């Protein structure tokens, strides 16, 4: 039997070559991978993987044949996009909390637990039905309990989550946002995530993803972002799938207290080859704080340098190109080594960061405080604060106060949707102007509700989680951001589209809250049944006896021995005993 190749011949050249022809190219896809390593001031090290698949196809075209041939783009996600008419999908799983004050801003922020937000296509008629089915399908793909997302924890933010890709969808009826702060991330979530990559975990940067090292860290976040983008060289829109994995290794637990990091120490693996399906495979190391090499020593040395403006700062990176064989050296293995020589100074304070906590005492009332810090010395800027609180914490919105520098600060835009018991959570969105170099405090009082006894989790004394607040802002940038999008930009700086040069987009997540609700004693039904039955039995029994018991005189029957003797005497015919 002759096996014939069924693959369509795909032109594997990169985009720049194709743009010269100006003919509509056949559906082609391209895959890029990169790893950014940023040493942090506290001695920890931050590694950010990004895998991007670009595919020039259209899942949502009506009247056309369904997409059936998948090459680099994973089929499971492609089918999800076309079945549920998804315009944009962002899902993240995070373990740990990002400490902005110690680590700066992450490339791609994410809240603790699981977060899912989706923009549906404007042709969808039943968005809620699609959302429910989508969460179930995703829970099967990622082995997570996303099926717990239902109407009681889904909101429709009106301003906070604008589409990150193409889309003139400003109607927020097609947006759904939900977060599960309790969701645990472990190897069973990483395994299917790795299987979505074209090379799996067998070649390329993904070989570094060993769960025993990745989960023994201060922060671990894996995410999938799908959006349609407009490529400069093509005239049709293409779909971009980005899989990102951010991990921060702790100086003491993973680094054993020594200020020396290497790929082997971080991941217990070294790199041996780039993914053969990748058009570009690079490792970037942030050396901005080390211009002359006085802070740490980087080996193997590389002549390639790259500058990028990311998060409002111009950073310099050493670049290692894994598609070139000389990167791997004689041993055919690439192990990056960073050895510290001196002490690093203090970190620049991040311009925007936030905290949240619950105040009050007892199990009846409480107060949520959200504190937002603007550390810019002279510029004020507005931030959009979004709070989604479950229905069982009943907010008293008339007690909402926003104070900056101990003066009242009235938000210019408020969108509030009150909760409906067991149907809908609270949604509060406010646009607050933060004065320069100040602390703004938002407080609101709440009352705790008593749930029905079947609504409690099996471990109710642990507490109930309230999802993180989201603070989205355009923060003034010290360095001019570049607005033109080119193919050669590294992935970490091209995630968020830049609309203007003087500011950059930042999203800050606060801590989730853990609130104790008044918990009943679950053995009470058993106690009540026992007590009631005893009372009824004793009471009814006595009453029944009083009514029906009669006393009669009764001759006592003779004991057994006498009866037996009488029986024998009767037989013998002898007179009986008394």
């Amino acid at each position: 039997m002759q096996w014939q190749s069924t693959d369509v011949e795909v032109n594997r050249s990169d985009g720049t070559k194709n743009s010269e022809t100006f003919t509509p190219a056949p559906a082609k896809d391209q895959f890029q991978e990169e790893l950014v390593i940023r040493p942090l001031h506290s001695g920890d090290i931050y590694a950010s993987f990004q895998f991007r698949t670009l595919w020039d196809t259209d899942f949502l075209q009506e009247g056309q044949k369904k997409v059936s041939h998948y090459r680099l783009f994973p089929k499971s996600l492609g089918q999800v996009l076309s079945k549920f008419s998804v315009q944009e999908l962002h899902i993240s799983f995070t373990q740990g909390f990002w400490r902005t004050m110690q680590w700066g801003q992450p490339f791609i922020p994410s809240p603790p637990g699981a977060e899912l937000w989706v923009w549906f296509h404007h042709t969808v008629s039943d968005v809620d039905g699609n959302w429910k089915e989508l969460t179930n399908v995703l829970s099967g793909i990622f082995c997570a309990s996303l099926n717990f997302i239902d109407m009681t924890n889904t909101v429709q933010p009106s301003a906070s989550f604008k589409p990150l890709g193409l889309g003139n969808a400003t109607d927020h009826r097609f947006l759904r946002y939900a977060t599960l702060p309790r969701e645990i991330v472990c190897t069973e979530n990483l395994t299917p995530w790795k299987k979505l990559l074209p090379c799996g975990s067998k070649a390329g940067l993904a070989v570094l993803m060993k769960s025993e090292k990745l989960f023994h860290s201060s922060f671990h976040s894996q995410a999938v972002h799908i959006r349609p983008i407009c490529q400069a060289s093509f005239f049709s829109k293409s779909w971009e799938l980005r899989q990102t994995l951010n991990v921060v290794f702790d100086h003491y637990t993973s680094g054993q207290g020594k200020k020396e990091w290497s790929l082997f120490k971080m991941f217990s693996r070294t790199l041996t080859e780039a993914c053969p399906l990748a058009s570009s495979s690079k490792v970037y190391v942030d050396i901005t704080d080390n211009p002359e090499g006085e802070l740490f020593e980087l080996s193997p040395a590389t002549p390639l340098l790259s500058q990028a403006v990311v998060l409002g700062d111009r950073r310099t990176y050493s670049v290692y190109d894994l598609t070139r064989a000389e990167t791997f050296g004689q041993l055919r293995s690439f192990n990056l080594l960073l050895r510290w020589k001196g002490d690093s100074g203090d970190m620049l304070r991040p311009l925007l960061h936030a905290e949240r906590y619950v105040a009050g005492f007892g199990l009846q009332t409480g107060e949520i405080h959200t504190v937002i810090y603007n550390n810019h010395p002279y510029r004020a800027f507005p931030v959009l604060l979004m709070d989604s609180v479950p229905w069982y914490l009943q907010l008293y919105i008339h007690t909402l106060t926003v104070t900056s520098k101990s003066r009242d600060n009235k938000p210019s835009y408020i969108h509030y949707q009150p909760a409906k018991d067991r149907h809908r959570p609270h949604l509060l969105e406010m646009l607050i102007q933060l004065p320069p170099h100040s602390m703004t405090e938002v407080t609101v009082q709440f009352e705790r509700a008593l749930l029905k006894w079947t609504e409690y989790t099996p471990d109710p004394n642990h507490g109930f989680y309230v999802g993180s607040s989201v603070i989205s802002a355009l923060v003034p940038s010290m360095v001019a951001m570049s607005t033109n999008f080119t193919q050669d930009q590294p992935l970490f700086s091209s995630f968020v589209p830049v609309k203007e040069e003087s500011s950059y987009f930042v999203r800050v997540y606060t801590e989730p809250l853990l609130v104790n609700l008044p918990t009943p004693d679950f053995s009470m039904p058993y106690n009540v049944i026992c007590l009631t039955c005893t009372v009824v039995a004793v009471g009814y029994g006595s009453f029944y006896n009083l009514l029906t018991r009669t006393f009669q005189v009764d001759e006592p029957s003779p004991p057994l021995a006498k009866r037996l003797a009488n029986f024998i005497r009767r037989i013998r015919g002898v007179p009986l005993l008394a």
Partner: protein
Amino acid sequence: MYSLSLHFFYPWIYLKKRIFTFCTIETGQFFSSGHTNNWAVLVCTSRFWFNYRHVANTLSVYRSVKRLGIPDSHIVLMLADDMACNYRNPKPATVFSHKNMELNVYGDDVEVDYRGYEVTVENFLRVLTGRLPPSTPRSKRLLSDDRSNILIYLTGHGGNGFLKFQDSEEISNMELADAFEQMWQKRRYNELLFIIDTCQGASMYERFYSPNLMALASSQVGEDSLSHQPDLAIGVHLMDKYTFYLLEFLEEVHPASQANMNDLFKVCPQSQCVSTPGHRTDLFQRNPGSVLITDFFGSVRKVEITKDTINLTSSVKPPIQSIAEHHVLQFVADVSSQNPKQKDWHPPDGFILGLWTLILLVFFQTYGIKHLKHIF
């Protein structure tokens, strides 16, 4: 070995009927199991860090089952709590079964289908009976048919006649027996092996009444199943005794092994386990000695090697049915249509007895004991 002998005898079947009887015995043994696919439902029902051993139990059976060939798509793994990435775990992303961290049963390639709060009695029974909401993904469904051999493993805390789920609800042995009967009536299994490792585990299989069920338990009614050994670095007991020795037994099994169920019944005698493991085979059609371990724990396919060319394109003529094939089909038809054995008569239930006692007591209380002699 069996397939080779069949191939050898193929041309002889048509020519020499004398070899007929010998051939029938060969095919009878070759197709003795009658299943075409394998499924496994592995459930850990306990929550909280100190129940680490129940998760380790379930994961060791998962590991053996995967090693012997059942793919993730045919395994429904339910873990009620997360031990591997628990904040109390000194070695994250690992679950150990042997002390001194010798064997990590969690591994690098694990897919948990139901986790955390999703492991409830309702979800477990829905998975068994197949009555799940339409939007449930495939990985969470038990898509077995009438030719599937299913392995069901339960572990957790239990008592006489019940198993505790997540410290908040229970499943009784009657519910489990009824679920299996529903599975039988919907022809959702060919044969089912039920293993339970809890205290008083034998009470859970007392009530089964559907055919083709074999059950094993780690302890008899009135006995407790004990845990094996703690690890001082992790701080909890790592495994239960019965599953520990079961894992050691299964590590010796490989896909071509001929170990049968009688060897499985001998796992963990009372000298090792302190409790007495029990088993129940009266509802099972075949002799346990002829049932291979890989019939339930592995996904071993029967392969028939032939050197003849088979024409797949012409569909009009039915293929010539050899006599051996005919007898195989007959045997299979007999097995599947056999009615379940008659239930043994049991004395009436406690409730009926109690009700009659109450009625008689009230009668004689009212009318006096002297009327008793009019009755008797």
